[in-house]
């Protein structure tokens, strides 16, 4: 039976340009991130820029998304970071934050790493809200030891954005 263990977390007490989990222990089988984020971008949504082990190559993402009632799908190949993972931004309904989960199976195995993401942009609007599911790949065989999260369009994650990193045993 899979067991979730909280490795580390951070709830921002003030705005920050990025959040990094470093020295991730190689003692689990999978990693799960639960993120509730909001950036200072002057829009209702933000694109989260995720990088692994401080590398800036060999990422790709296939995505399904709905913005309001418009559904779309696509693929970003050979990108410098993982995206698009949508989260809330500064014109979304006050005090709303994204609900985001990123799952990384077999993060220490010596092969390319598949990564799945599921996110919603929470906003009290009939049209300006987003839900998306992503299937990504980091084409690198190194064990994942560092994960970094920064906004693409804004400058900072806003205060009380939260980042929780769990390790899963017996997945």
């Amino acid at each position, binding site marked *: 039976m899979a067991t979730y263990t909280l*490795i*580390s*977390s*951070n709830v*921002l007490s003030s705005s*920050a*340009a*990025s*959040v*990094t*989990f*470093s*020295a*991730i*222990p190689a003692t689990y089988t999978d990693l799960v991130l639960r993120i509730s984020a909001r950036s200072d971008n002057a829009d209702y949504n933000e*694109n989260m*820029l995720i*990088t692994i082990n401080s590398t*800036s190559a060999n990422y790709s993402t296939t995505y399904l998304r709905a913005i309001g009632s418009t559904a*779309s799908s*696509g*693929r*970003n190949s050979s*990108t*410098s*970071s993982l*995206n*698009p993972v949508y989260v809330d931004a500064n014109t979304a309904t006050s005090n709303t934050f994204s609900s985001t989960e990123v799952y990384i199976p077999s993060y220490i195995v010596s092969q390319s790493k598949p990564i799945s993401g599921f996110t919603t942009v929470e906003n009290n609007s009939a049209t300006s809200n987003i839900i998306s599911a992503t299937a990504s790949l980091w084409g690198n065989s190194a064990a994942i030891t560092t994960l970094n999260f*920064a*906004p*693409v*369009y804004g*400058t*900072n994650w806003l205060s009380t954005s939260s*980042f929780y*990193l769990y390790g899963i045993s017996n997945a």
Partner: protein
Amino acid sequence: MPHKIIVDCSTGETTEVELTAEEIVDQEAAQKAAEAERKAQEVIAAAKATAKAALLDKLGITAEEATLLLS
């Protein structure tokens, strides 16, 4: 000066560090690259949609009819 949060998972220690000028430049470059990659993908998707619409028009059928043909 913007700062970054680093959570050391081996110790549980969280540090708040001001970004250096070089890190700010690097982060801005990463942001611009991500934005450019996203826009490039949107251009490809738009071109594909345009080509698809043109083909449907040429065939004289709707998207729903094309889906039915392929089902």
